[in-house]
């Protein structure tokens, strides 16, 4: 059993949870993920690690309520236990040897982008963070981002916080002004990552995207998480989740992500009204 040490709501549909999991915490690095289950009959939920405390033997995850499984997780409170948490899974985000990096986060993807920004900052890289949200009330982790960034830009779709528009606005201006990033790391909705990849390709800036496909086991067994990268079939759980964004077939990934959309929609209707005011 894995005890929930802390739980905090970051916005109406996004929650941060710190969970005691010594085995997963031993080696977890930025960019890796865990799979957990909220109850004995529950689904396996893959969540990227948002933080690790090796001394406390805990990992922190930040999740958005999107369907039945994440709703069940949301019902768990600090002090309670969940039956399963396995990790770390996937390969860590490559951060060594980078000097000037743009970390681009969108929505709940910012939860995953933050530990990457933090790690780069600790390694002495110049970090430019560009984060995007739909509106002011969905903004998360702004202070944390600012403290690990040399430069910080925010955009919201409705302009209620930061500039109006999306992350490609500030990023595009920086690139147009001649900024030479040695890497752009994009983590967020597939559509956002697709547009970031198209933008940076024009400038020839190496870009990685963190993929978050549907998966079950996370160890290469189910093949559900396959992504086409440069025409080759890759498994996000063992080969990724980070891939060369200029070679990912985003349209296929977007299509595959909707595989169980009907099922999730039914689960939401059965579940609660929370989603109606939420993100997406």
């Amino acid at each position, binding site marked *: 059993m894995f005890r929930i040490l802390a739980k905090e709501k970051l916005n109406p549909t996004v929650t941060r949870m710190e969970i005691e999991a010594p085995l997963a915490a031993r080696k977890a690095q930025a960019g890796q993920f865990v799979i957990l289950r909220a109850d004995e009959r529950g*689904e396996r939920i893959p969540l990227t690690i948002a933080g690790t405390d090796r001394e406390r033997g805990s990992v922190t995850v930040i999740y958005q309520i999107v369907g039945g499984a994440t709703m069940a997780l949301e019902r768990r409170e600090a002090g309670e236990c969940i039956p399963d948490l396995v990790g770390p899974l996937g390969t860590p985000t490559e951060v060594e040897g980078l000097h000037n990096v743009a970390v681009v986060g969108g929505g709940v993807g910012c939860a995953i982008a933050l530990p990457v920004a933090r790690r780069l900052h600790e390694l002495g890289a110049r970090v430019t963070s560009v984060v995007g949200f739909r509106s002011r009330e969905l903004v998360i982790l702004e202070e944390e981002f600012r403290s690990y960034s040399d430069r910080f830009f925010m955009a919201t779709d409705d302009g209620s916080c930061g500039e109006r528009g999306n992350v490609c606005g500030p990023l595009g201006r920086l690139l147009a002004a001649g900024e030479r990033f040695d890497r752009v790391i994009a983590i967020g909705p597939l559509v956002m990552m697709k547009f970031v990849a198209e933008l940076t390709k024009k400038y020839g800036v190496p870009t990685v995207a963190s993929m978050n496909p549907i998966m079950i086991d996370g160890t*290469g067994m*189910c093949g559900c998480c396959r992504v086409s990268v440069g025409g080759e079939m890759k498994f996000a759980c063992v080969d990724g989740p980070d891939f060369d964004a200029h070679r990912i077939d985003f349209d296929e990934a977007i299509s595959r992500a909707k595989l169980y959309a009907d099922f999730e929609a039914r689960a939401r209707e059965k579940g609660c009204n929370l989603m109606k005011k939420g993100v997406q």
Partner: protein
Amino acid sequence: MMRYDPDPKMNPMPVQDPAVRSRNFSEVALGYDEATAVKEAGRCLHCKNRPCVEGCPVGVAIPEFIALVAEGKFEEAYAVIRETSSLPAVCGRVCPQERQCESKCTRGIKHEPVGIGRLERFVADYHMAHAPVPAPVPPRTEGKRVAVVGSGPAGLACAGDLAKLGYAVTVFEALHVAGGVLVYGIPEFRLPKAIVRREVEGLRALGVEFVTDAVAGRAFTVGELKTEFGFDAVFLGTGAGLPKFMNIPGENAKGVFSANEYLTRVNLMGAYEEDCETPLYRAARVAVVGGGNVAMDAARCARRMGAEVTVVYRRSEAELPARREEAEHAKEEGVSFLFLTNPVEVLADESGKVRALKCVEMALGEPDASGRRRPVEVKGSEREIEADCVIMALGTSPNPLVTRTTEGLAAKPRGEIVADDGGRTSLDGVFAGGDAVTGSATVILAMGAGKAAAKSIDEYLRSEK
């Protein structure tokens, strides 16, 4: 002198009616009752040269246990099987007996062989129904410690033998339940999960500790199991979990699944149960590509989920690698077969969902390395098979997580760990067996490899100071 029953036919095993069972997940075969078991045991000739034992990968003392069944001494018969087999209730259900013990049976030369598999199953089930469930004891902590990575048949067999020898054994499993392929792969209707749970409970009663949610190669390396976790030896029974795909166009369309994924959703995650949260792709026409047991399992699961199912296999029926009984059961349940047919492309509609499988006809040519005649494409034979779901059951290769992260562990190009008959690898104190070494094979071979490795580990730890 024992009299034998001259009945030329094997006593049939009662099964659920195909029309009923193709709509439920309860076990298909219902097993012998006591009287039928005694009668079937009476068919054994007790040949001096014991050919059946040679046909068994682990050498179960077959005539001896059958003699005890004939006398109605079922518990004693169970004890005989347990001397060599760790998982009788499992092997009695999933072994390809027609290619092993039963293929060598003298009775089978003129008539039908003795139903050895059915008798093994009966004896194991009798024991389960009559022997008390052993109470778990606290994990053993004293003495030399062995880490077993993977809780499939190889790992369970190895752990059991080592625990009986007095070692403190800890089994690490990446999934949330123990059992490996026995729980995620083989469906409930062929191997009830209660049987696997009972086997695992039996090991706990021997003091074996199970750590689920522990993924080797990520949370810890094999080397760290010895240096940081203090294990004296390690057994790698990590199986062959990586699904193969065909690398044909359209394979990433929505509705194409590996058999591993489909079976895991249905079995391990219980998607067949009404109130289950696990989503399953609803399909009306399912094409299953492949001809092994896994293909049969996937086809029969899809059938039970209400689909019209066609198995597409590139060779002819004679080469079908599945257990004969599984293929027959599949047919009875209404699964259709397209032999000498090979997919060349998955066709999707404008929303990216599977709409058909484009196939070519095959003809059998010269025998290949496996001795089977190699299928060759018939020119101009392309045709479309209507399908809204395609399940790829083409076999699996070893999971690369452990070999990629264990320095000095010799592996073959396709990922199989190099190990000798005793499971010794290129690393001191590290042993391996089962599908991780052989590539995808059978439960009984994996179990045999686990037992052989347990023997080597015992020798290794005794010689070590």
